[in-house]
């Protein structure tokens, strides 16, 4: 798995060509032929690293602010206004700041970062995000010694966000990380995907992406980042504390109380494609496992 690439902006069709090129050269025609046999697919890592299409990434979303069906966000977010947009960094910091989207894009250069996304519902995508490490943004403030956690707050705008008119979750959407998780280089501030501006349905203008956690941890359309002393209660923890924990690390050994997390279905693979085994920390264990050493991950789910 390529974690991130400092390449230039590449259009989708070139990406695709590159993938098929690597595939044909690197694996050879025999492997390709074999990959069409579903039962053998399980052992081939190549399939799970294939980029999900731009269409699937941008039309199949969980973004309850725009409706609870997967096609709702695409349908209901097109007129959503993302300018002007300010992000406040506040809480347990010496001097709180407020940055506009323009200031942020001037200050930080977005790079291509290809990460797997594993949804808690049991499906996954591979997404070429554009973004930069959250640690860079957080370094703009000096936290006090009380600061232990980071809280993310998404925008609250029921006039523009249909879904927020219903108490599906407690709005605004809220998420959180431990400071060391937030400072980890893999924790990304996302500003685009497939070399393009981030579409509204994917969390424009700015979202967080944490590759080793279930998708819902990666809050969209962020307006506030707050340093706090106590562990924040996320929207999903409010909704169902038994089912959604603070950590929510991808873990094939800890099932959701109502369904298994051992396997996942890769989006865009078609009817005959089998499920693939879910990887611990979504395959980013080498980078992040040390954050949780000595912790009981069954208890701290």
């Amino acid at each position: 798995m390529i974690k991130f690439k400092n390449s230039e902006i590449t259009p989708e069709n070139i990406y695709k060509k590159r993938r098929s090129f690597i595939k044909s050269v690197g694996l050879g025609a025999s492997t390709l032929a074999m990959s069409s046999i579903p039962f053998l697919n399980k052992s081939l890592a190549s399939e799970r690293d294939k980029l999900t299409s731009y269409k699937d990434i941008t039309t199949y979303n969980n973004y309850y602010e725009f409706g609870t069906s997967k096609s709702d966000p695409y349908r209901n977010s097109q007129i959503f206004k993302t300018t002007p947009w300010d992000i406040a960094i506040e809480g347990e910091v010496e001097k709180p700041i407020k940055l506009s989207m323009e200031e942020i894009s001037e200050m930080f250069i977005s790079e291509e970062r290809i990460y797997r996304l594993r949804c808690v519902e049991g499906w996954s995508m591979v997404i070429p995000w554009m973004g930069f490490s959250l640690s860079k943004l957080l370094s703009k403030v000096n936290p006090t010694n009380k600061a232990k956690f980071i809280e993310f707050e998404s925008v609250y705008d029921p006039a523009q966000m249909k879904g927020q008119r219903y108490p599906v979750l407690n709005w605004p959407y809220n998420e959180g990380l431990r400071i060391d998780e937030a400072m980890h280089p893999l924790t990304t501030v996302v500003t685009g995907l497939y070399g393009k501006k981030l579409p509204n349905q994917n969390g424009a203008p700015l979202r967080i992406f944490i590759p080793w956690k279930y998708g819902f941890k990666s809050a969209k359309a962020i307006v506030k980042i707050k340093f706090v002393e106590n562990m924040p209660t996320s929207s999903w923890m409010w909704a169902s504390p038994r089912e959604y924990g603070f950590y929510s690390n991808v873990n094939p050994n800890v099932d959701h109380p109502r369904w298994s997390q051992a396997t996942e279905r890769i989006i865009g693979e078609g009817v005959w494609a089998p499920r693939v085994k879910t990887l611990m920390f979504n395959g980013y264990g080498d980078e992040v496992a040390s954050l949780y050493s000595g912790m009981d991950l069954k208890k701290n789910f």
Partner: protein
Amino acid sequence: MRRYSKTLVFFLSLWPIYVISYQIIFNQLGPEPVDRIINHFGEWTLIFILLTLSMTPLKQITKSVEWIKFRRMLGLFTFFYASIHMLSYVGLDYRFDIEPLINDVLKKKFIFIGFSAWLLLIPLAVTSSEKMVRLLKQNWKKIHRLIYIIGIFGVLHYIWLSKTIFFKPLIFLIILIILLLFRIKITRSASKI
């Protein structure tokens, strides 16, 4: 017209098959086709349970026995769609990989209750023929009361698999409750006579 009403209902009941065939042929199943197929047949199973349960109340309301002749067919379609639903889960999603399946059935309450509902449908399908009605006499009615439990299991199956309380499962629940309340009313008024 009345002579053909049963044939008409039969072909109308195949609607879910037409829809999914169209979607398969024209590649309209979306990014998660397996999920789409499973959910499609799951939802239609529930709709057919509710349709089956509507026939007796419709008879009461319209004071016409016409409805009852569709009841068996609708019930069998319920079993048919429930079986496709179950088989697409077992076959398409889990590829008949028995171990994780058993694990799911035993550990996940929504799968347990859904699977139970399907099992309970089997005796109803088996005893659905005219011959069985005559053979079982009074017991036939008792066996076929299982459909109430199946309906409840089916809707619970839907509610439990949803991440939060959603609109659709609630609609199914409300309609089911109304249809079951009819039964209480019917038996009450019957016992008065």
